[in-house]
């Protein structure tokens, strides 16, 4: 009798623990908000990310955009990237890191009074091309730079 009780207790505990783990795991993707561009951000390569975000992969480079990124980053967990766009009517700026599992880092939609400048910190898994996409007056432009990373910043 006693032994049976032990077994019962053990099995219920195990069941509830796994149940909790499953629900926790399942909740994460479901909590994704509708407004967040899931297809673009969870894309596994640059082309899919660009298709999801802008609907195009053929983006010409422009010398009117400047991307400031370090040539060698000591740690990939915090790499400062800044983009300056000298194009008129800059609408949005995106950052992509080619070798990251999910390349699209962030999209900044700028208001009419916001100047074409954004600076932010991103994680870079391993040495990779960093791409900035600028949308100005309905057209897309890009610029890229290679960033060498001494210690990766994803997965620690």
């Amino acid at each position, binding site marked *: 009798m006693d032994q049976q009780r032990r077994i019962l207790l053990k099995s219920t505990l195990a069941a509830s623990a796994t149940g909790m783990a499953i629900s926790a795991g399942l909740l994460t993707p479901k909590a994704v908000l509708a407004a967040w561009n899931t297809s673009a951000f969870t894309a596994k390569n640059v082309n899919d990310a660009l298709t999801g975000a802008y609907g195009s992969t053929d983006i010409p480079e422009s010398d009117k955009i400047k991307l400031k990124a370090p040539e060698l980053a000591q740690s990939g967990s915090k790499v400062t990237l800044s983009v300056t766009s000298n194009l008129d009517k800059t609408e949005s700026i995106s950052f992509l890191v080619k070798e990251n*599992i999910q390349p699209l880092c962030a999209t*900044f939609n700028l*208001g*009419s009074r916001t*100047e074409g400048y*954004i600076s932010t910190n991103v994680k*870079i898994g391993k040495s990779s091309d960093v791409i900035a996409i600028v949308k100005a007056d309905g057209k897309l432009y890009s610029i890229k730079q290679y960033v060498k990373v001494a210690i990766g*910043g994803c997965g620690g």
Partner: protein
Amino acid sequence: MAKSKSTFKIRSRFKGDVATIQCQITHPMETGMRKDKKGNLIPAHFIQKFTCEHAGDVVLDTELNTSVSKNPYIKFKLSGAKEGDTLKLHWVDNKGNSDSAELEMKSRRRKKK
């Protein structure tokens, strides 16, 4: 979320008509790929949307991914803003947590000559 301290920190600088705003949000930004000491995956926890409003206009509407660094830092430039104006900031993360704040734009204390 009952938090005593705001998750936002801003710092503004003014040059003529253009304000440079630096904003930092306190947030773990977990990628969902890191493991804890026992080898279990730490679930993803990151900010997805960040917006900034000034004088009724949305001046910055941002979508972030897990690959933005811990305690996200964003710097941008805004024209038509002056010292003492209020910035309305708001973020939402993938767990549905959010925080918003209204902060006054103050310039950094200048060094005495």
